[in-house]
């Protein structure tokens, strides 16, 4: 796969389906100097889901729902990676530090495809869920068994590297599988409406913005700049992107 194909891959699926060959031709003709414009164009289109040309029924809603879960998964992995500051704990004894979770969880709940109330559709949904989640569930079970088996009490060198890689690989596998599941259940479940998805994205963005603010305040108090500060910037950017896309999906009053 060359750079032009990679750049075309950055575009939302509907735009890729509709205009992919044309974008590719322009990239091939103009070369390196057209890359920044093409990449910025892809980012702008992700922020404007209302302009995606649907190439199949419900495509915009399905892709927006998957994107919401992808942002959530990326956030969770990032917070796990940087060992979040005490400002972002999910702890009932410190309610203030958990406030960002309220809009975040509300957004996830609103964006979740609803299970249908028909046996045939429920069976299909269950089969899709088992197929998508069986792999990560097995990897997680193996990790728990390994951790509790006692064989890992004295490890070093290459074994440590392999275990840490396995841990992160399992987390990433689970995150990807959750997004794949949301994408695949579209045929068997009821996808949220555009308005509901827009509201869900705005709520998720509000949660991420609160997390960024709480984290920034903790950084200022502690005087620490890395890596929590980098997480603050990443949270703020994700918040801005999700709020922009959410506002765009919600019907505008004229």
């Amino acid at each position, binding site marked *: 796969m060359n750079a032009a194909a990679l750049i075309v891959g950055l575009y939302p699926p509907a735009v890729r389906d509709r205009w992919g060959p044309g974008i590719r031709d322009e990239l091939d003709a103009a070369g390196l100097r057209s890359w920044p414009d093409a990449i910025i164009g892809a980012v702008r289109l992700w922020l404007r889901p209302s302009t995606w*040309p649907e190439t199949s029924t419900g495509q915009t809603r399905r892709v927006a729902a998957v994107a919401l879960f992808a942002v959530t998964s990326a956030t969770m992995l990032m917070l796990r990676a940087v060992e979040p500051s005490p400002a972002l704990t999910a702890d009932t004894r410190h309610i203030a530090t958990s406030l960002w979770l309220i809009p975040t969880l509300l957004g996830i709940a609103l964006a979740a495809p609803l299970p249908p109330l028909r046996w045939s559709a429920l069976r299909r949904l269950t089969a899709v869920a088992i197929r998508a989640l069986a792999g990560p569930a097995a990897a997680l079970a193996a990790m728990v068994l390994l951790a509790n088996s006692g064989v890992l009490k004295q490890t070093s060198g290459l074994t440590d590297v392999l275990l840490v890689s396995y841990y992160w690989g399992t987390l990433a596998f689970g995150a990807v599988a959750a997004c794949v599941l949301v994408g695949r259940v579209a045929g068997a479940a009821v996808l949220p409406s555009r308005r509901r998805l827009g509201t869900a994205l705005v709520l998720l963005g509000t949660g991420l913005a609160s997390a960024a603010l709480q984290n920034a305040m903790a950084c200022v108090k502690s005087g620490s700049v890395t890596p929590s500060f980098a997480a603050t910037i990443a949270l703020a950017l994700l918040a801005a992107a999700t709020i922009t896309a959410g506002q765009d999906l919600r019907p505008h009053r004229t």
Partner: protein
Amino acid sequence: MHSNDAQMLVLTVLADGPLHGYAINTAIQELTGSRLGPGSLYGALSRLEARALIRPAGAEADASPRERHRTMEITDAGRDALRAELEQMNRIARAGLRALGINPA
């Protein structure tokens, strides 16, 4: 180039007749001396189609959405939007030329 400028350029060249993406950019190059970047061009096409100012031309409207080179045409709403935009630009251009002491033709 601003995205609205890109949209107006696309509408302007499509007002002459249906074209596909690469030909639209070639017509813009003939008009302005430079091509739009791929992101600007296809972003503008997506936005214009979402606003129903352009649409796939003739038989291509029924073709597969994954057609390699889709020919697009301007809609009546697109013509109205372009006319309104050009008239506004014309008013601004005339006022600017008057302010500079130049008599607009």
